[in-house]
């Protein structure tokens, strides 16, 4: 009697054991997929639906009205939307290209040019990347100040110092620059901040890429009498291509969604004649200041389209050749 009971409970235990073993991986990964369904997937589908509606959230869900592609058509004729696109592209390129042009030689110099202090230097370059964009933008707002900002003070000093005055030529007349107040200077100011915040991240990415290049290549080149410059252009750059491709992809995706820095530097307004308003800012203001939720959703899809298009163009022109050099 007692024996059958044990074997019965054993059978139940084995069955439970088998069940928990088979179910475990699904249970373990489920939290992510449940959250993703609610806060990731559903919002995307819903924003697609919303972009075809006219709706002001204050008046309640019942006032939602289907308008077809009207939001998109309206945006295509909206000068502010186009300005936000050109602003975004301007800032993305003006901050993005110098990031990589500086980061690659810098990573090379850190890896091959010096013998010590590699980590402290890298850490210093990297630090802005992990600090709050809002905090850092507020600090830069004082740096960009017209009368007393550190940047103008430094420029005025350099423009008057005998050893550097020649660099400025006729430009010295424009000092001090009203960086955040005058339309032509707002985008450069934002680009400087973005460059400063992200170049260190790229240095670290390229340092990781450099670490994968076998040392023998450099040794062989050196035996053949190659200079550091030749090594850089004939070994480092070609072998770094896959990493360049990857890092530039990250820059494209990130820079097109720029929000915190332009938002703080322009005090949330976009600046004089919207010269600093990015697409992300326009999206925010349309949705949460002007309460045009449908239009805002349409902007988010157009931004997604822009990111997708530029990424595809980048893949088309650089992706294949990037892969070829790896073979």
């Amino acid at each position, binding site marked *: 009697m007692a024996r059958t009971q044990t074997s019965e409970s054993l059978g139940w235990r084995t069955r439970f*054991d088998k069940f928990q073993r088979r179910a475990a*991986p*699904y249970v*373990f*990964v489920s*939290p*992510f997929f449940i*959250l993703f369904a609610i*806060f*990731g997937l*559903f*919002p*995307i589908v*819903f*924003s697609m639906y*919303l972009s075809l509606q006219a709706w002001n*959230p204050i008046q309640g869900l019942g006032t939602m009205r289907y308008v077809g592609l009207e939001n998109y058509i309206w945006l295509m004729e909206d000068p502010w939307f186009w300005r936000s696109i050109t602003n975004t592209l301007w800032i993305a390129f003006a901050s993005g290209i110098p990031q990589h042009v500086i980061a690659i030689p*810098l990573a090379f*110099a850190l890896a*091959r*040019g*010096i*013998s010590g202090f590699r*980590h402290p230097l890298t*850490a*210093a*370059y*990297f*630090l*802005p990347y*992990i*600090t*709050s*964009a*809002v*905090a*850092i933008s*507020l*600090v830069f*707002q*004082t*740096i960009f100040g017209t009368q*007393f*900002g*550190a940047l103008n*003070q430094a420029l005025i000093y350099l423009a008057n110092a005998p050893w550097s005055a020649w660099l400025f030529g006729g430009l010295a007349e424009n000092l001090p620059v009203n960086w955040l107040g005058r339309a032509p200077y707002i985008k450069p100011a934002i680009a400087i901040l973005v460059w*400063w915040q992200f170049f260190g991240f790229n240095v*670290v990415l390229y340092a*990781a890429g450099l670490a994968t290049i076998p040392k023998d290549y450099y040794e062989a080149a*050196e*035996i053949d*009498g190659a200079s*550091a410059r030749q090594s850089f252009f004939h070994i480092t750059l070609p072998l770094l291509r896959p990493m360049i491709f990857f890092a530039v992809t*990250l820059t494209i995706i990130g820079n097109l969604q720029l929000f*915190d820095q332009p938002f703080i530097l322009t005090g949330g307004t976009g600046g004089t004649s919207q010269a600093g308003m990015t697409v*992300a800012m326009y999206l*925010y203001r349309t*949705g949460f200041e002007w309460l045009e939720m449908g239009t805002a*959703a349409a902007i*988010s899809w157009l931004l997604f389209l822009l990111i997708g298009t530029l990424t595809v163009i980048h893949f088309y022109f650089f992706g294949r050749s990037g892969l070829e050099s790896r073979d």
Partner: protein
Amino acid sequence: MRPPATPFKSPAADTRTGRNPVAQFVLYVVLIALALLTLFPFYWMFVLATHTQSSIFSAPPPMWFGEFLDRNYQTLIGRLPFLRNIWNSFYIALMATVTTMFFASLAGFAFAMYEFRFKRALFGLLITSLLIPPLLGIIPYYLIIQYLGWLNTPRALWVPAMASAFGIFLMRQYIASSMPRELLDAGRIDGASEFRIYWSIALPIIRPGLATLGMLTFIGQWNNFLGPLVVLNQRESYTIPVALRTLQGQIQTDWGAILTGTALAVLPLLIIFVFASKQVIEGLVAGSVKG
């Protein structure tokens, strides 16, 4: 002409210890100057946090610490419930960090250790989700939070952040490279349940990777701006970045107070970075490069 290099001399040492000491010295000067330029805004922030409005706006601007940190702090907490705002930031970041460490390592464990149906498809979906621009869902995110009645609560921010795709990916890589599969079988022979194996065998092994994930999550949540800006609209519920942003718009903008708040927002990050810069940098790079 250089004499032919002897085959056993290390050419790496050759380049590094300076064939050309002058060139190396110049390189150091350039690299250090750039590092100082990068660090200058942080220094200036701390300096200005100790000065009054009128000395901030004077020429030349102050370059050394003043005596008004306390006064600026008093102004700050007079204009905002700033301690409350710091607590909100801390609480949200902490909840997101603890839950992410748990759920991401659990899922990463499953992806690294098990073979199961739809594993490849699920992992592919996870990676794809990393590529979706967060802005795409921002309007519906607000509507969902409003529907749930979570506006102005910390939950609105940490619940959606409980399990990040980035974190799961990082943990999967870490577990796959640091935990032998035999341990799984050993645990089963001892009669441990699968969760028990994760909890008692995997977790202790992956502690360093978990610490990295924790720091990255904390930093990301602490700095988050757009999310809080959208779902928090009462002073008492603000996180630090949103609170600082409201100071900026006031007619009597007090920059000493703003920069004191800014310094307080950056300080925890600096502390984390001073102690764990290597881990933070490596974690972020591993997470993005292998993705």
